[in-house]
């Protein structure tokens, strides 16, 4: 079971500048937990203190929005999860 997660550019400093990571899990939530195990500094950036997903992050599975309730969405081998963060420059 291998799922690819692509992290937002803004979070590269917390993934040792790796844009993607291979993780395992049956849901988006499990995959993100695995990502946090690999890169612990991401924990407070991806989740709030109650464990909910940071509201400024939007999750896509195979380029389709996983919202609402993205953490419970099932994923399968070969899926690609993409995380985007809101940006405000102009």
């Amino acid at each position, binding site marked *: 079971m291998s799922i690819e997660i692509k992290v937002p*550019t803004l979070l590269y400093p917390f993934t040792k500048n790796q844009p993607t990571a291979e993780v395992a899990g049956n849901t988006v939530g499990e995959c993100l937990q695995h990502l946090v195990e690999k890169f612990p500094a991401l924990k407070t950036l991806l989740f709030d203190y109650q464990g909910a997903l940071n*509201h400024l992050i939007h999750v*896509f599975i195979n380029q389709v*929005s996983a*919202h609402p309730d993205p953490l419970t969405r099932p994923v399968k081998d070969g899926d690609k999860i993409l995380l985007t963060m*809101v*940006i*405000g*420059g*102009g």
Partner: protein
Amino acid sequence: MLTKEERERYERQILIPGFGEAGQEKLKKARVFIAGAGGLGSPVAIYLAAAGVGMLRIVDHDRVELSNLNRQILHWDENIGGSKTDSAAAKLKKINPYVKIEALAETITEESAPRLAAGFDVIVDAMDNLPTRYLLNRTAIEKKIPFIHGAVYGFEGRAMTIIPGQTACLNCIYHGAIPPREKFPVIGVTPAVIGCIQATEVIKYIVGIGELLTNRLLVYDGLKTTFTELEVSKDPNCKHCGRQPGK
């Protein structure tokens, strides 16, 4: 009716199949509100003026600073210290004297946004901060005016077109507390790419040609030279465009 000079000026775009003189006349009658005369606002305004959009309202309260000049191509060294709107209006009038330019040096606020947007066909998001983007998103939905979103950070950019009542809005994608304005890294080519996409969307919407960038968030990665389309959908519980706006 187009004048002889206008037919000649816009000849190459009038030649585009599906565009024609009818499309050019639509542009001539159109009124576009560009919120911001900075990195995004510069290419948006330049290309909409060059294309012959009849009236452009550009709103920005800032003055030109040296650190703006790597990306805000409407402003030059000689404009440092002056208002961005004066600088923008002077250049745009030279680019196309047929276009009416209304440049307003004022702040877009809860109070002013509805007045500034009233009577316009399209609103372009060329802001440099999230709170005003969300204010404009809500204003566009309340006034049922198409809203062309763009944002940049470093080498990365985003764009999406919002048709009120029909497609996903900015708040459908990102909601909750909005981070305050902050200084962000950016290189000028990024807003150039995204601003041109926004201007393209405006032209397509007004002329009624092609397929709009709706329900698709376009993510541009300049470092990899990739464009990724992400499929989004309207959130029925969205506080801006959902079943019960404001709740």
